[in-house]
């Protein structure tokens, strides 16, 4: 069963219930909580796993009550890290399958882990002073749209959304995001993957194919990753907003960044924010207090390095992700760290760096990535590919679609400020855009489109 289809199905049930039932806090908590539990059972298909997850949530909740006893949450952190490492090392793997990841917990492990750690840290740092109620915490942790691949949202934000009034602007914005996400996701899988990539991750054979220029492959890989991941995120955020919950956006025009630091502020924003708030800042603070280095800049750079190492290894315990995290850390620290005065120099350089790291991310190994880079020199037969009318047509369609995605995102972004009055023309334009996006999103279809990020 395609996770996205399940999410859309259950999400729309949630939206309809939100509009039918009275919009009081307890009603909403009950409907969303019930739907989240049902969804969890639906994706896990196992009473044992379902109970284990609920027990896990209950244990975290209990730990948050006794937060003054440090050993409790320190033990919890150690246990979570041990479980996480065992996941990534594939201790539950039999043959080609990871039993837990594919059958039991195909989704949600990372999200629940981040969510629980954030709660414990917030309680320990007294950001949340009062003990949280179990029902609310469980609904927040298992909030079903975000259970698959995030975006990560905090418990406090969830609670605020729960108590907030109905906002028609939020609903319209959510709907537009949903249409946009559906289109992007379908576009990534059906079009980019089918016509250009054939299979993900990139294999050595594809990387060295004689009729494909490496730069084209890198461009397509990056756009594929972006449309796939941000498409999924937009569907999630859109559904959540239509249900009255403000879940933060995960992407903000990342390809227009002029430095790698800016790129990471605009790409997978919520993950970056989590690591910044709960890992990078405390680490930097402690290192600064220890006064290991004279310069605070060196301390910050070291913290950046360690943070990226952790982000990389969180994705996967492998040589590829180690290289990925080190390259990222180096780029963040040394590539236009304070931005450049001339945008026309910094943007192309950053863009190329982004293409490289995304290609590495989607390669099956470091060797494949190196082969891809080598083929910049060895590959000369590029004309044949581009003179094929079918390829030209596909490229034209890809360029037009990407341009359309950019313009539509800009248009939908105009709806994101709920405090401003929105021009009726903007609403009308969004109305038309949504019809077009939904039309192509549904007719392109989601069958066989896989979310790249679900594995993490």
């Amino acid at each position: 069963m395609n996770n996205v289809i399940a999410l859309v199905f259950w999400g729309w049930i949630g939206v309809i219930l939100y509009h039918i039932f009275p919009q009081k806090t307890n009603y909403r908590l009950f409907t969303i909580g019930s739907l989240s539990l049902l969804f969890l059972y639906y994706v896990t298909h196992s009473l044992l796993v379902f109970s284990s997850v609920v027990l896990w949530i209950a244990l975290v909740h209990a730990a948050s009550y006794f937060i003054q006893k440090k050993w409790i949450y320190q033990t919890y952190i150690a246990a979570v890290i041990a479980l996480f490492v065992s996941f990534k090392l594939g201790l539950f793997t039999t043959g080609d399958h990871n039993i837990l990841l594919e059958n039991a917990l195909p989704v949600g492990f990372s999200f629940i882990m981040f969510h629980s750690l954030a709660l414990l840290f917030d309680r320990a740092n007294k950001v949340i002073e009062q003990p949280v109620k179990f029902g609310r915490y469980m609904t927040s942790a298992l909030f079903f749209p975000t259970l698959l691949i995030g975006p990560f949202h905090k418990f406090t934000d969830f609670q605020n959304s729960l108590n907030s009034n109905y906002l028609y602007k939020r609903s319209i914005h959510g709907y537009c995001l949903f249409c946009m996400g559906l289109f992007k996701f379908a576009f990534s899988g059906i079009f980019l993957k089918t016509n250009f990539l054939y299979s993900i991750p990139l294999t050595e054979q594809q990387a060295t194919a004689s009729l494909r220029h490496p730069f084209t492959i890198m461009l397509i890989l990056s756009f594929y990753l972006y449309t796939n991941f941000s498409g999924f995120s937009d569907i999630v955020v859109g559904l959540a907003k239509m249900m009255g919950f403000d879940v933060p956006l995960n992407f903000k025009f990342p390809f227009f960044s002029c430095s790698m630091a800016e790129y990471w502020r605009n790409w997978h924003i919520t993950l970056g924010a989590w690591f910044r708030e709960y890992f990078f800042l405390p680490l930097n603070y402690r290192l600064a207090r220890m006064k290991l280095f004279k310069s605070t800049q060196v301390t910050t750079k070291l913290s950046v390095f360690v943070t990226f190492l952790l982000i990389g290894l969180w994705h996967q315990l492998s040589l590829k992700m180690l290289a990925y995290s080190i390259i990222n850390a180096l780029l963040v620290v040394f590539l236009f760290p304070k931005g450049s005065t001339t945008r026309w120099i910094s943007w192309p350089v950053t863009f190329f760096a982004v293409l490289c790291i995304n290609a590495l991310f989607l390669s099956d190994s470091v060797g494949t990535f190196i082969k891809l880079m080598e083929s910049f020199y060895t590959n000369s037969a590029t004309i044949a590919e581009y003179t094929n009318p079918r390829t030209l047509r596909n490229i034209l369609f890809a360029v037009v679609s990407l341009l359309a995605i950019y313009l539509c995102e800009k248009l939908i972004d105009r709806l994101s400020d709920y405090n401003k009055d929105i021009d009726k023309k903007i609403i009308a334009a969004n109305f038309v855009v949504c019809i077009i996006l939904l039309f192509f999103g549904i007719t392109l279809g989601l069958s066989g489109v896989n979310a790249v990020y679900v594995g993490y």
Partner: protein
Amino acid sequence: MNKKHLSTLFIVLNLAFSFSAIYYVIDHFSHAMPNTIRKKSNQRFGKLMRNLPVISAKPEVTTLFLGTSIFQYFLYPPDFDKPLNDAGIESVSYNLAFEGNFGLGLYALNNRLMGEFSKNQKKFKAVIIEICPASMNRRTFNRHKLMIDVGNPDVFMNKAAWKDMFIADPATATYLFLNSHMPAFDWQYLEAYAFIQGRIYSFERKPRFAGIANIWSLPQFYERPEWNLEKFGMSGWNLPASQIEFDQMQNKMHEPDEWKAMLADYFRGNGLNENGGFMGYEESLINYYIESVKLAQKFADNVYLLKVPYAPDFQQLADKFSYEDYVLNKVAAQTSATVIDYTKSFDFKDADFADAMHLRQESMKQVMTKLAHDLKDRYK
């Protein structure tokens, strides 16, 4: 009207417009192009079923041949009946086209045939079913996982099965139902879709709609072919406009580079995983095949499994990376059906093949002639 109604109106109206547009386009094409996939499915199964009273007038002397490949028809449609009839064997042939290779289609068809024949208690003299171990791999399985998960091959032929499916998996059922008119959710299409990604389809044709996205270049958007493939069970199929196009494609395909790339693509799609390792056979597909053979044994006195040869280059790859005897032996052991293995019986060259796993018309004739002679000996 308060603000809440404004957003509800926005969403509801938008959904209404979008789905109207989708309905309009699909409806337009389903009228303009008379062959939606579902209709084709019904026509093809229907044709066989309609003809059954005729072909099964004397089932006890009739041999039923079930071919299992769309390619065989797509490139050079062979005539299975003629060689058998020439050898004095009364026969009827039927090609399962897309559904055949992965077992479920065969299972569904045999279910139907069994239902049909259990009424009059008559059995065919023999049923010959093609077997293709290379297709019974995990890649094929994954490609059809959605359908296999549903676990009921009748879903696409029997409306009552929708109810059971809805109870088992409401989201999938709703999704399939909403898109039931669309080929993307028909298992025939799933197979076609996989082929579209490969080289076999990647020749220039005449797109009718938009002309910019491959998705709109699906078979149903093409004009009707000039050929009459009705007799092969391909009623309503849209093929490239002429045989010349096929010949051009064929010549292009046998250029050495293209041929090598195609073999690699083919084998990657049919046996190797991304890292070059053999994927292993998918037991559930083999089991479906075994069940299908067992069903066939209920409406036939003899069941033969025919293994046709692969292109020599491809055979080398298959010998190197896979163990095809495993499938053949397993099916034979569990069903006690006779395997007629022609893997090494002919001296074919690569040029005798339409592609890696499919014979040209002329080569297929040779296979069928040999089969006819073999059967004649067996029937004595």
